[in-house]
């Protein structure tokens, strides 16, 4: 957000002053509910499973690692990869069945039409990553435009990994998958891993608040699911103002 001052009428300035004084006297801060408990549990279990899958998968994907630990250890790792894979697929599916409206809400946001702020945000995003101290970003709705793109890629890559993983698991146990079909599925699984590796690292860097302007955002999914008024206004300005005006999801503490 710009540091530039905006001119307001004396009446507005007086109202703002009263607002700030009342706020100070109360001594509380406002928070907006961003993620439900179910969404957080689903996200956290899935992301832990995903990280474990990435690590265990590396022992087949990276030849020096495979050779370093030997066939017996890789066998144990492969079996755990299969078990964790089932968790990775089953938990989001069960959660989706339990909350279909939540799934619809996620996908509605993912495919929401981009307004001019969304487009500008996306153009500014890469310069912002390297010049966060100076570049101010346009306000965003509930999901930032770049977040929609990155989340979409993670949804896609996750689904690709889940489906291809299940086909390979069943194709080597329940039925026999032919060599050519197996090759295609294996390649798709590798492509899914490539996408997960790149977008997942970026997601962790931003979502876990390793990147300084995003400090504290880890609490949204790994904490109580609340976002402070200040952080909400910075990251999702349009959404925050709507929520603060509406007051329904606002918590004071």
């Amino acid at each position, binding site marked *: *957000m*710009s*540091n*530039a*001052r*905006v001119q*307001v009428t004396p009446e*507005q300035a007086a*109202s*703002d002053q009263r607002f*700030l004084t009342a*706020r100070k006297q109360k001594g509380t801060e406002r928070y907006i509910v961003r993620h439900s408990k179910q969404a957080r549990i689903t996200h956290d279990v899935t992301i832990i499973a995903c990280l474990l899958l990435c690590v265990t998968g590396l*022992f*087949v*994907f990276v*030849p020096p690692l*495979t*050779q370093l630990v030997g*066939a017996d250890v890789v*066998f144990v790792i*492969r079996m755990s990869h299969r078990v964790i894979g089932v968790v990775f697929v089953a938990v989001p599916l069960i959660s989706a069945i339990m909350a279909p409206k939540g799934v619809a809400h996620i996908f509605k946001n993912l495919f929401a039409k981009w*307004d*001019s*702020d969304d487009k*500008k945000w996306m153009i*500014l995003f890469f*310069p912002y990553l*390297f*010049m*966060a*101290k*100076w*570049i*101010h*970003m*346009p*306000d965003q709705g509930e999901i930032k435009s770049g977040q929609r793109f990155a989340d979409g890629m993670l949804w896609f890559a996750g689904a690709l990994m889940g489906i291809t993983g299940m086909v390979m698991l069943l194709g*080597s146990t329940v039925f026999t998958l032919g*060599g*050519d079909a*197996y*090759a295609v599925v*294996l390649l798709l699984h*590798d492509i899914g891993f*490539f996408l997960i590796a790149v977008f997942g*690292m*970026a997601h962790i*860097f931003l979502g876990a608040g*390793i*990147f*300084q*302007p995003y400090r504290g955002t880890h609490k949204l999914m790994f904490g109580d699911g609340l976002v402070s*008024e*200040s952080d909400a*206004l910075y990251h999702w*300005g*349009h959404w925050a*103002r709507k929520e*603060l*005006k509406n007051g329904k999801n606002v918590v004071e503490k």
Partner: protein
Amino acid sequence: MAEKAILFDTSRCTGCHACQIACKCWNVLPSPTRLNENTFSGTHQNPPDLNGATRLIMTYSEADGALPNKPVAWAFGRRSCQHCTDAPCASICPSGTLYVHEESGMVTVDASKCVACHYCVTACPFDVPRYNGMQGKVNKCTGCVDRIEQGIAPACVSTCQPEALSFGDRDEMLAEAEKRLAMLKSRGYEHAVIYGAEEIGGLHVIQVFKYGVEAHGQVLDPKVSPITTLTNIMKPVTGVVAGATVIGLAVMFGLAAGYKRDKLAYNAETEDTISLETGEVIKHGDGQDTESVKEHITCNLPIGKKGGDHE
């Protein structure tokens, strides 16, 4: 040791299965032996294809013969690993289970290293490696490198009584194949051909096909699948891009060191977004941004124009 090769002259093969059985014996590979345990394949070819415990099979093809005195063209084949010079199974194997035996050029197997990833099964242009589910290991012809290292020919070659199979230096086997081909051509087998001289970088099983490649059940013009090539590319690409991502993120982290921003609050009554540090209104209302991209980048820089128009 010079590069070695097995030569298979189909014109000398009697289809006796001895090579198949010798392979089983030498490599201690089990076979169903109870009555009717094997499904009848409709031909002498048994088992119908390679499997987790069968590394070599004789194939049988009965076609109409072109010569008047030979109305039936019995085309015997030998289906097993071709020991490619540019073996895609070995290049894709992550565990070092399949590798090219440097001394002989044979593509051999160290099953103790197999992690059952199936990569080799998907990569072979001849559809040879088979996964043995019971053992959780891949199974294919080893080229009998254990015998070769002791100066003995592979088991299948040693047992071949009609001398359809022979073994030796690859150059010599190719020269011998040329002689056999010339002989077959002189006898009117116009489709006779040598297979393995150039395919997949040159095979270490050279075959002389009496009735042409396809008649003997082999792959005409075998190629490494583009899927295999892509799979091989994916690993370094993923490594490089993931590494670049980590470096990029580290640079971003470094450049953002010392970052801080004003805390904000929103007065719904006036629709003003206010800085709690300075008390100044930094945005009024909730309209779309009106600054240009350039202004977004430069307005907070310590140099150049400052300002905003969130009126």
